[in-house]
């Protein structure tokens, strides 16, 4: 490209993206003595600034607008939801369930773990064998026994707290090779009550393993003190987020270039990757070379970058000889029910999420409809209660009483469904372009009959029973499926290069030195949160990368 600046030295390993996946791989490579260069599209911002951004928001934006404290840079746009029109700006969504793919993620150094809840469920052995067990979806190219040690490493890398009693652990009947590094976060009053009530109708509410320090420090980060705003930001870094890894990566010699938007991956005559091109904030282009490349930009930006990088040898985009890049887009389609009860429940003590019901994710019914995870959200209800009480026109003591009642006697119940990988749920390049002139992502999304059947026959009736058991006097169900922000599938893993994008190490079938680890590689979405599995896949890829580079 004319006027392009080459340089920045290059490195053994070039990692695009500084989220949990990129940071875990970078640190493994640095520990193995390799040189690492990381590219981050967005800015690097101090935690206190984001905390202050959050607290300075108007009350109407403090809840459910997790993107609001993270204003994007013009060159690194992400979803903003302050109003409906704004939500249409970046992600171009279409299809029957477009609303269910309104994915929130942060293009900031540290990535979307800035505003994750920290929940770290493992997959079950069955979750990895949907096709062979239930005749739906896809099987993983390896079994639970292969991923188990990587789960342990991921749990120790992020500092996951969880119960030591096998009866409270997930998956059931699968042995852990090592206990959780920390004991569980204690339940708040709402969770105690919810657990008792759910048990009466056969639903087991388990303490959630979470990347959050319980009672003691871990890796120099303090114990959780219950600020109850894990999203949009943990103000004290008691919850793991990848931003906390950045100083350590730099201490180990890793270089991090922020405000550097990768827009093209360059192949050589052997179809290996030889460089990544990126724009800086002045729209100046640069080129960095390396021996191995990791694209760790989560499930939307990674396929987008692969499609943007098409060249003469790879006419459909990089890593895309199977035509599967950008297909099989998954997330857990979510339904929420806001309920009001006679008795106080008092959610809000401890983290925003701290427990879930998972026995409903498993069963032979998965041949017919989706399994699903149920949860009571544990965020403090006082801002919602205050807004609702004010709307009623109350003042003085009556206002105080009503705020208190609404904060105590309301709750949100959530159900997240597993979705199957469908080729038609597809990310393509939109004709609309962003500030840099790069195509915006366009996603067609239909949750499918598998999920709709589950909602109708299985989950909504259970939500209603849960509400009744809690003594609900009102039950308001979301009118359509919503996003869960767990982006999966766009670079799907498999052993057959004709039907999948990456192999069991998240290495591209088409390019020997290109790795695409993370949620995009997951062959099954399942009903549980994806981050721990993304982290495990990152560590598995890191082993392969280090093996490669140390032997060549």
């Amino acid at each position, binding site marked *: 490209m004319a006027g392009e600046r080459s340089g920045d030295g290059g490195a053994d390993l070039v990692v695009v993206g500084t989220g949990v996946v990129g940071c875990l791989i970078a640190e493994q490579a640095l520990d193995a003595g390799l040189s690492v260069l990381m590219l981050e599209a967005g800015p690097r911002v101090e935690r206190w600034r984001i905390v202050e951004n959050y607290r*300075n928001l108007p009350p109407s934006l403090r809840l459910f607008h997790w993107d609001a*404290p993270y204003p994007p840079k013009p060159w690194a746009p992400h979803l903003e939801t302050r109003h409906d029109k704004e939500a249409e700006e970046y992600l171009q969504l279409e299809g029957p369930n477009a609303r269910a793919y309104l994915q929130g993620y942060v293009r900031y150094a540290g990535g979307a773990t800035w505003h994750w809840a920290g929940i770290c469920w493992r997959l079950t052995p069955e979750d990895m064998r949907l096709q062979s067990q239930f005749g739906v979806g896809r099987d993983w190219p390896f079994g639970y026994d292969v991923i188990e040690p990587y789960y342990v490493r991921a749990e120790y890398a992020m500092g996951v707290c969880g119960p030591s009693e096998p009866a409270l652990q997930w998956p059931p009947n699968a042995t852990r090779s090592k206990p959780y590094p920390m004991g569980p976060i204690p339940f708040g009053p709402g969770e105690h009550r919810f657990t008792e009530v759910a048990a009466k109708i056969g639903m087991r509410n388990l303490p959630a393993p979470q990347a959050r320090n319980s009672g003691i420090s871990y890796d120099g980060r303090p114990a959780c003190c219950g600020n109850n705003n894990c999203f949009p930001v943990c103000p004290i870094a008691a919850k793991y987020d990848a931003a906390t890894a950045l100083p350590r990566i730099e201490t180990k010699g890793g270089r991090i270039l922020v405000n550097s938007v990768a827009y093209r991956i360059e192949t050589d005559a052997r179809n290996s990757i030889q460089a990544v091109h990126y724009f800086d904030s002045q729209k100046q282009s640069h080129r960095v070379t390396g021996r191995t490349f990791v694209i760790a930009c989560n499930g939307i930006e990674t396929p987008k970058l692969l499609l943007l990088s098409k060249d003469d040898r790879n006419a459909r985009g990089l890593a895309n000889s199977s035509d599967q890049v950008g297909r099989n887009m998954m997330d857990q389609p979510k339904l929420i029910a806001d309920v009001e009860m006679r008795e106080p429940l008092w959610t809000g003590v401890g983290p925003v999420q701290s427990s879930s019901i998972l026995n409903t994710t498993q069963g032979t019914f998965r041949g017919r409809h989706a399994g699903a995870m149920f949860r009571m959200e544990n965020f403090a209800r006082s801002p919602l209660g205050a807004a609702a009480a004010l709307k009623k026109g109350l003042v003085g003591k009556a206002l105080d009483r009503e705020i208190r009642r609404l904060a105590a006697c309301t709750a949100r119940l959530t159900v997240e469904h597993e979705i199957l990988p469908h080729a038609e749920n597809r990310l393509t390049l939109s004709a609309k372009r962003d500030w840099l002139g790069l195509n915006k992502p366009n996603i067609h999304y239909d949750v499918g009959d598998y999920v709709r059947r589950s909602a109708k026959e299985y989950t909504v009736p259970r939500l209603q029973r849960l509400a009744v058991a809690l003594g609900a006097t009102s039950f308001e169900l979301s009118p359509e499926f919503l996003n869960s922000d767990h982006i999966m599938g766009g670079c799907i893993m498999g052993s057959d290069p004709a039907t999948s994008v990456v192999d069991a190490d998240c290495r591209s079938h088409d390019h020997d030195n290109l790795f695409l680890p993370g949620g995009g590689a997951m062959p099954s979405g399942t009903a549980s949160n994806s981050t721990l599995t993304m982290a495990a896949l990152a560590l598995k890829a890191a082993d392969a990368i280090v093996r490669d580079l140390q032997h060549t």
Partner: protein
Amino acid sequence: MIRRLSFVAGIAIAGIAGAAESSEESRELVKRGEYLAVASDCTACHSAPHGKPFAGGLAITTPIGTIYSTNITPSAGFGIGDYTEEEFSKALRRGVRRDGAQLYSAMPYTSYAKLTDDDVHALYAFLLHGVKPVDERPPRTELPFPLSMRASMIAWNFLFLDTKVFTPDAQESAQWNRGAYLTLGAAHCSTCHTPRGVLMQEQSSRALSGARVGPWFAPNITSDLKSGIGSWTKEELVAYLSTGRILGKTQAAGSMGEAVEHSFQHLTSSDLDAVATYVKSVPAIHDPVDDESRFHAGAAFSEVASTRGRGGTHSDSDAVPNGAELFQGNCASCHAVEGQGSKDGYYPSLFHNSATGAKNATNLVAAILYGVERSTSKGQAFMPGFGGHPTDANPLSNRDIAALANYVLVNYGSGKASITEEQVAEGRQEWPSSPLLSIVRAAMATLALLVLVGVVLTVRRAFVGR
């Protein structure tokens, strides 16, 4: 083969112990030695973080360079396995190694000189028979010339080492005497709390009146009501030593946090009572700058009611933040919006707190730079550092730390903004640079010149005389 070797070793150990005393007595002796080792906090320096117990290797930064602690396990080649009791005693109480070389006074042998022969005997028994040998050699200490000449310590010892074992004061109670023995000897309180002179010697005329310890300040613990801890009850002092804190007054951090964790919390309550009795009696030394006690300054304060919502949202950190923003964004999540701490006291209040109330704000800066970590039977006290160490999740610049600390001082503490960016930078260096090296070098040059002049004069006189 391995089994046979360990069998032989087993016989050897049994042989030594058996020759000296009956096994019951020797077990008791080793146990008493272990208690004394805890009271002397040997592990603070002689065990490195994540290292094996007593295997040394801890890097101790001092104003004159880095000193590495030694291996004091019973390993023959690497530790003190070859030491006779007499040689051990000489190292402990005189600062002389088995090979005759001098120890640097980072080893508090000036305090341990007070230990009785009986206690030295017990310590020796513990270190030789109660500790696992570790065959590892810690890094060598290499100080700049002329301090690299360990013999220079001979002169220092001649000037500053009091070799007298502790002698009880017949005028005082047994409890007071026990406390004095522990405070002045094993617990070596003066090592940190007594200011040092230009040759790094403790200034006994200002005993326990406060001194800099790396980035921290070991405060005045004399009985002065305003400068010292004269306002504490004896019970408070005991509680402080066993838990590292007094709610609404103070908390231990830095090396005092370590002393509580590794040493004081394990002492018997009668020994803690004794230490408290003695320390309460230490003559008051008043610093005229202290117009009020450091434990009672400040009050709850917040200005969020007028500022919240006005700051907007920013995607940069490069704006110059004010102290209020830095306080709310970095401190208030734990220490609460008005600085009052948490109801259960886990997070201390920032007012009525010696770290913010002291005229000398060294410890406030150090707490922000290095955080606090202290584990006792009451659990862990932990505050993350903001100083940019590899595991500090939220590093702050010198400018921001100065602005933040001054905001805290003005609104919650002593009332006066006194911290400069340079002071924060100095805190990051751990020690302010010491004049000692240049003084010693200048003294040596002067001495050399005098000798030269002397020689010249003598030679001239000889010539003239002839």
